[in-house]
């Protein structure tokens, strides 16, 4: 069963593991940290791609569910629960909110849905910032005298940047495989059908609103995982990390990289998160200023001239080309 492609993928993962170890030995904590951060973003983008790339629902408030995942994890960890128990609980909490929001949304037109998610994202941030009793308000969690429990695996405790990198890599790779399974299943084909033509899909016997809701809720699982890991890794969370621009930034990654294509969106993360950070070391901080300017322009140009993204999805390219 091990065809060439599988071999390549396994080799790639092994190489990443070795590179990370090498960076650790060399004390290149910064590179390692950025790689970990990219891993977190890949998780987020995988979730967002499920709604934008697969079902064609534009979500402009995705960061809210990352925030809910992160905050629920922080609150539970302060109570003394361990990472492995928090993870499923946080996923459930996040999924519950996602379901509450998603249920009435499925009847809405695409652009209305985008605006409602934007509104929900902002409401989430403002509530986290104002509900001092629960979230410690702007001061962030954990508060004075509280702490986030370290992650333990049997008797081993995570302390180094490298440990967290492997943890993030494990979840990221796991998520990629899980999503690939879904995409190739009947549900995955239903996703695409809805994206291309909802009416036709409905007529062909797909229960569109259920499928849409399924993708909408499932996508939040990845945001929750990312949030839980982020809190344990950094050990601190505050509302200012979850702004609207952060959501837009995620949308940029999906759109620029290539909607619906896993490799494309990973490339989007490398392009938007990795490159600026590594260029910062070479070019100095001034470059960061122009980053958003360039991204804004790129988005417009790409949407017009290459709507399928830099690394497009095969299926989609065929569709777009055949239309012309």
């Amino acid at each position: 069963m091990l065809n060439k492609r599988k071999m390549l993928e396994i080799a790639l993962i092994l190489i990443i593991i070795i590179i990370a170890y090498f960076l650790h030995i060399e004390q290149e904590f910064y590179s390692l940290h950025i790689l970990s951060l990219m891993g977190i973003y890949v998780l987020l983008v995988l979730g967002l791609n499920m709604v934008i790339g697969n079902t064609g629902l534009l979500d402009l408030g995705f960061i809210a569910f990352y925030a809910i995942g992160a905050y629920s994890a922080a609150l539970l960890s302060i109570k003394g629960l361990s990472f492995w128990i928090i993870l499923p609980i946080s996923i459930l909490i996040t999924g519950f909110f996602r379901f509450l929001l998603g249920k009435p949304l499925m009847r809405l037109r695409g652009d209305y849905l985008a605006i409602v998610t934007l509104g929900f994202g902002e409401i989430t941030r403002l509530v986290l910032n104002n509900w001092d009793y629960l979230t410690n308000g702007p001061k962030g969690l954990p508060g004075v005298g509280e702490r986030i429990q370290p992650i333990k695996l049997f008797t081993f405790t995570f302390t180094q940047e490298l440990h967290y990198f492997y943890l993030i890599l494990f979840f990221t790779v796991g998520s990629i495989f899980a999503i690939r399974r879904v995409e190739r299943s009947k549900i995955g084909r239903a996703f695409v059908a809805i994206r291309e033509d909802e009416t036709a899909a409905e007529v062909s016997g797909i229960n569109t609103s259920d499928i849409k809701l399924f993708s909408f809720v499932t996508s939040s699982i990845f945001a929750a995982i990312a949030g839980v890991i982020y809190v344990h890794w950094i050990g601190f969370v505050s509302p200012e990390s979850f702004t609207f621009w952060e959501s837009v930034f995620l949308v940029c990654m999906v759109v620029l990289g290539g909607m619906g294509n896993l490799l494309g969106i990973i490339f989007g993360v490398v392009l938007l998160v990795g490159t600026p950070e590594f260029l910062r070391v070479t070019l100095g901080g001034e470059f960061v200023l122009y980053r958003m300017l360039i991204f804004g322009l790129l988005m417009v140009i790409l949407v017009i001239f290459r709507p399928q993204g830099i690394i497009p999805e095969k299926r989609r390219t065929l569709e777009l080309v055949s239309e012309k």
Partner: protein
Amino acid sequence: MRKILCFVLISLVCVSFVSCGVKKDVKEGKVVKVALVCPLTGDIAAMGQGMKNGATLAIEEANQTLKEIKFELLALDDRADPKEAVNAANQIVSDKDVCGVVGHLNSGCSIPASAVYNRHNLVMVSPASTNPKLTQQGFTNVFRTCTTDDVQGSFAADFVYKKEIKGVAIIHDKTPYGQGLAEEFQKTFQNLRGKVLCFEGISLGDRDFKALLIKIKGLNPQIIYFGGMYQEGGLISKQAKELGLNVPLVGGDGIYTGEYIKIAGKSSEGDMATMIGSPPDKLPKAKDFIEKYKTKFPDMDMQPYDPYTYDTTNIIIEAVKNIGQDKGKIIDYIKNIKYDGIIGETRFDEKGDTLNKEITCYSVKDGKWQISE
């Protein structure tokens, strides 16, 4: 597909080697780096740029007198964003020549970054993060040269109470800094049996405070205490007077800048601000610093934290001069340091907070901040 996979692989490899390649060209000889992290871009870049000026001056002076060690400033930008701050912190701990960190400006950035420095036993002295939590995490490597919110907030409450003011309205901007200040003010003022008529939060970046101020006007406060920065503070002061609520606004160091007066215009007359430390022009050493600052950066106004950054940088330089580059020893040295600088004498308590708890109250007279008696 294969092509793409190879491409991703190659880009990853490149990415990981780029950073290695960059840092291998360190000059031979004894170069010691002092890192400064603060927002050099973004909304409060002006304060960050000022801090950079302060640190630059300290480094240059040190290099004029020293022969055997050469100090270098490694200034990084955290954009006042916690995520960026942690990125920058990791960049710093990857650099073996860095012996100490000056920063960050915002408490929201200092707190998560301090955990990274602590993991690598690197000293961090913040000249500007005032949130009490920073030094209460049990880290041995974290210090600060500025006083905390609780000192400043309660000082303001005492000061106001002594002026026979019994009723205040409190507004804060829902940031760690602003809310912390406002809460401390409230606590102290209520202990003094003063009346807090309301305690209201606003949103950062908001412009219209009239609805809130109309409500406050109905409560007849004698002053408005504001925890927050100059932009919102200036607008609140202006709109209060427009509505005929002619009471002074009292704030913390966040409004103690010329920008505040520009925004509030004539309405700012009589408003007050507390600022940590003694006024720089009262100390003989500081006069010298102000002169130097003016000659080196003629077209820049001095920002509130520049003197602090100057002293903080000097504290780390002092430690390296006396101890060498052993990170653990530097921390021990700074713990017991007695440094006489331009903000007065700095010594640290067991938590890492400064014992210099001087606070000065300023008020706006004739369109300028002047020391108020």
